[in-house]
């Protein structure tokens, strides 16, 4: 039915609607928060008077909003805000890169199985890997791999990607299968298109929206996983902070100086929740169905 108010479609449309005055309030606030957090973590540490490793010997355990340190200091006098932002940088970096890797691999693998191009060996192999990773509880898999490979930032990125790519594969596979049934793909085959052409021009652009949504939700998951692992001491190593290791650090002083735990805890919770809201808004904006409750 034409004639109704036409709304712009696609990813940009979904994002535009979020910042429109009549858009979804929660999503708007969430989007602003996430973007703000990314900007703060990227640029923030340079603008602060203290670096994350600067030790202020006179002031340790300074509570927030008292004196020169805006959010106080930790047990050896390092600036909490600087460590929070640097920690965020590590957490977001791990999250974004892991999500990017898993989205790329997952989309490729999903399209491969969805089109049935590799034949049964490829499908069988991928299905085996996917089932295996889905069988293991993510956190145990993560810890097992981390203890084998030894903790470092690149390792943790690889491990998290390995844990979350299966979700993207599943989504891309289902989307591809549905698309393969559509007449426009039949038409392309009938016009003499090569498999490469069909995948890049007909399948991929129509799979990407769903993959984008999954990736947004995966990003939240990746950040959370990084926090788990770092909290348990297998992730980002001291003295470099991450949100998870900050929490780990703070647990000794939980009773006497709770803000040390509250600050990174709040940062993780708010960021993950906000990303979740943005993801859902994008999904609704793209008109994709909720895949599971």
């Amino acid at each position, binding site marked *: *039915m*034409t*004639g*109704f*108010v036409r709304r712009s479609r696609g990813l940009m449309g979904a994002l535009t609607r979020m910042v429109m005055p009549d858009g979804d309030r929660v999503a708007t606030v969430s989007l602003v928060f996430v973007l703000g957090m990314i900007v703060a973590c990227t640029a923030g540490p340079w603008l602060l008077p203290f670096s994350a490793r600067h030790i202020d010997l006179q002031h340790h355990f300074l509570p927030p909003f008292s004196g020169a340190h805006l959010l106080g200091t930790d047990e050896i006098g390092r600036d909490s805000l600087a460590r929070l932002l640097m920690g965020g940088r590590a957490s977001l970096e791990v999250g974004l890169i892991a999500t990017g890797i898993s989205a790329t691999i997952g989309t490729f693998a999903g399209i491969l199985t969805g089109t049935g191009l590799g034949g049964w060996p490829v499908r069988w192999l991928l299905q085996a890997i996917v089932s295996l990773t889905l069988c293991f509880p993510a956190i145990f898999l993560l810890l097992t791999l981390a203890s084998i490979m030894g903790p470092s930032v690149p390792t943790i990125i690889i491990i998290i990607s390995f844990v979350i790519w299966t979700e993207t594969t599943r989504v891309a596979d289902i989307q591809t299968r549905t698309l393969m049934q559509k007449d426009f793909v039949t038409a392309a085959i009938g016009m003499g298109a090569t498999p490469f052409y069909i995948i890049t021009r007909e399948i991929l652009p129509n799979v990407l929206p769903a993959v984008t949504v999954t990736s947004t939700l995966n990003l939240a998951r990746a950040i959370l996983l990084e926090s788990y692992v770092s909290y348990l001491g297998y992730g980002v190593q001291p003295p470099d902070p991450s949100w998870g290791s900050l929490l780990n650090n703070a647990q000794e002083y939980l009773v006497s100086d709770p803000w040390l735990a509250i600050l990174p805890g709040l940062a993780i919770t708010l960021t993950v929740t906000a990303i979740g809201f943005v993801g859902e808004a994008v999904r609704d904006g793209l008109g994709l169905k909720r895949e599971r409750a």
Partner: protein
Amino acid sequence: MTTRDTVLEVDGLSVGFGPQAPNALPPVIEDVSFSVRRGEIVCLVGESSSGKSVTSLALMGLLPPSARITGEIMLHGREAGEPSLDLLQLSRRARNRIRGHRISMVFQDPMNCLDPIFSIGNQLVEILRWHNALSRVEAWRQGIGYLHAVGINQPDVCMKRMPHELSGGMRQRVMIAMALAGKPELLIADEPTTALDVTVQAQVLDLLLRLRTQTGMSVIFITHNLAVASRIADRIIVMYAGQIVENSSAESFFTRPAMPYSRALLDALPTVDMIRQGQKRLKTISGNVPGLAERPAGCRFFPRCVHGVAAMCDSGSPVLQSAGADHLVRCRRWEEISA
């Protein structure tokens, strides 16, 4: 006296969607008025976006709560003493009691309406027990009777089948049996034969005619195909861009269609005579049904009408006027055109 042999009277029914005034869109259907007599088969004919389906959903009370509905839908009682009900004023609960019981509906795609995980018998028994206080055994026995009534051979076998085991025609018969289970006074059938093959379509149309004679129920049959309509209709109501443009007895309509749009619909249909004579080209009208925002100010068909006269047709919405006994038409020039 007229009330008693009329089942349904629709008066000034308008339905709108979307935002409230001041930036409201024009209503999807506007000032739709007609009545259905007892035992009458009324065919609501129109192309897509003519508003025929919205009209039927409004009659069933199946429009989403956001729809803005105005007008009156009076359902008259069977007996002289029974009160008439305005369906639009009823509570949702009272409406639910009428739906399926006094007014039933059959949809285009029966597969979407049958639950794939229950057998036909199961679903039929449930509906029968919903309408009447019956034991399971008694309901099963009656269910077989209903399947027999819709022309299914071996109804006891059919009761045990799952929906996917039945052919399209069989499923549509089952749907009709379910719609009949409440002994409705009025059956609304929304394109019930469009998805069916020609031979099956003919059987389902015959079935509706026979059921009408047997039970005396009225039928509102919605279709876009005038040839199908001509096979069963007592009355033809043609809708175009949200309005009724012609309302006539079938006989009068097919001998003297008055509205240019109705004539265009008839001309666009390949007829048996054309095939016999080897005539190839159909008469067509240019353009499409105007969208909601593009509806012209005057006669809505004017931009596509070959008989349109600018000064006469392009301003002020024409009203339905009499073009003979039991024949209403929304055209100012019908007399000149017919001559």
